[in-house]
């Protein structure tokens, strides 16, 4: 029971990181980007590639299974993932934005997600990979609840990012511009905001958070080309649950989805775990389509 709580919070915080990026891009760019989850996979594999090139020249920092090289690799991967997101926007979404039918761009994102997944499969192969083979001993936190040091690290990073992003959206000019753009793009432009610049930063932030989510997933589970595919439903469930555009809502939504998945395994066979976010999604759309905290970019009000 307690272990399910710990596992749920852990996978929930990874879902939350991906969902923050998705909710921001959905709130600001106004379309459901099905390729967002593939940015998580891409980020995770880019970190693996950088790690492979630089090598683990510095040993892990006890008690974690990783050291400075992985942190460095994550930063480089965030840049590479941002570049991919910007390239996709330029090559695929920008021409599609001219179309009056909103669904065109959504279907475009389906195509992009397939393409990215297959490219990863082609380059890295389908077998599971790991950042580190170091064995870790789980630390008992409470009686009946054991957590790996890497998992504690994951929770800490998520908390720092959520607080930092909240500060960024509330206190900086770019954050304010993002919130203004999410509410009314035309009024934002009339007020002198170059919305193209704000859109580019939105991609960079979304892609960077996706990278961190991907690395943390790879660290606590394993790297597979299907990471993104398995995350699509949980991410959308978290975003819809929290209200599109609502960063704080995405975090709570992510935790709820993560916890629901891990507790469901106690009741139903593990094979049905993947259906849990789907049920949550349907329930939210039926009962409260605007999400628990309906809102625009910037968090709960």
């Amino acid at each position, binding site marked *: 029971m307690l272990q399910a709580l710990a596992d749920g919070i852990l996978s929930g915080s990874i879902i939350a990181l991906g969902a923050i990026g998705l909710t921001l891009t959905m709130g600001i760019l106004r379309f459901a980007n099905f390729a967002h989850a593939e940015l998580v996979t891409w980020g995770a594999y880019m970190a693996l590639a950088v790690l492979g090139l630089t090598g683990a020249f510095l040993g892990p920092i006890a008690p974690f299974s990783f050291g400075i090289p992985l942190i460095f690799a994550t930063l480089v991967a965030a840049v590479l993932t941002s570049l991919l997101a910007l390239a996709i926007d330029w090559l695929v979404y920008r021409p599609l934005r001219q179309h009056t039918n909103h669904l065109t761009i959504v279907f475009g994102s389906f195509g992009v997600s397939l393409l990215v997944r297959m490219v990863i499969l082609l380059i890295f192969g389908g077998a599971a990979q790991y950042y580190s083979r170091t064995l870790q001993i789980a630390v008992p936190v409470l009686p009946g609840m054991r957590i790996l040091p890497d998992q504690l690290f994951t929770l800490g990073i998520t908390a720092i990012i959520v607080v930092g992003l909240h500060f960024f959206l509330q206190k900086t000019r770019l954050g*304010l511009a993002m919130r203004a753009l999410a*509410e009314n793009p035309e009024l934002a432009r009339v007020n*002198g905001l170059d919305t193209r610049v704000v859109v580019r930063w939105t991609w960079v932030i979304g892609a960077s958070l996706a990278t961190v989510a991907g690395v943390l997933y790879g660290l606590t589970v394993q790297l597979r080309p299907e990471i993104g595919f398995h995350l699509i439903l949980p991410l959308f469930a978290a975003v819809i649950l929290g209200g599109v555009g609502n960063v704080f809502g995405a975090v709570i939504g992510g935790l709820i989805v993560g916890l629901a998945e891990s507790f469901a395994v106690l009741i139903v066979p593990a094979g049905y775990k993947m259906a849990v976010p789907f049920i949550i999604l349907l329930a939210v759309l039926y009962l409260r389509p605007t999400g628990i905290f309906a809102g625009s970019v910037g968090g709960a009000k």
Partner: protein
Amino acid sequence: MNTPLLEVEKVVAGYRPDLPIVHGISLNVGEAEMVTIIGPNGAGKSTLIKAIAGVVPISSGRVALGGRDITRLPTHTMAAASIAYVPQTANVFTTLTINENLLVGASSLPKAEAQRRIELGYENFPALKDYRHKKARVLSGGQRQMLAVARALLTEPRLIMLDEPSAGLSPLMVSEVFQRLKALVETGVAILMVEQNAKAALAISHRTYVFAEGRNRIDGPSKSIAEDPEVASIYLGAGGRKR
């Protein structure tokens, strides 16, 4: 005669190039002049000022401000080109606080200057100061209009364009908003506004243009437009008859 501040020459504009709404309208606005556009629904009044503001694409014609060609400038550079535009509906960011609304309006300015002008704005619109940390959605229609005008003034524009500033306001609020606009013109700002409330708008503006079906119909000093029987027939006949 000096060149007017705003010159609009034979502008054709519409959301889609194959479906123009404005069919070659010309007008001008002088320095510190208050000009009203009236006309029946579908006359292209709002579309014209959106086209000048860069929100609706212009397919032919020319727009110049102070002699500088501003036709097809990107919307976000209009504020720097000294034009401010206040839309009719959704003219404030309701999810942002009053202060944040003003910060968005001042985002092209250096931080210290932005802060100075925002404080100045609060002095001119003291009612806004009490709400500065409240979300703009709590404001009434009149207060929103004041906030939108205060925000438009932050970049110190030479011309402010307003789309139906009196829409949805109580008669008392309408006269307050119009008195504000009149006071603004006295400080040297030019105003171009679209109005359905023709009577009140004609009473305070210097000149008036009457549009119908995307074309110029009549223009002249507001006083003579108010007395022109032709104007009433344009409204009643929905612009069907030729002059």
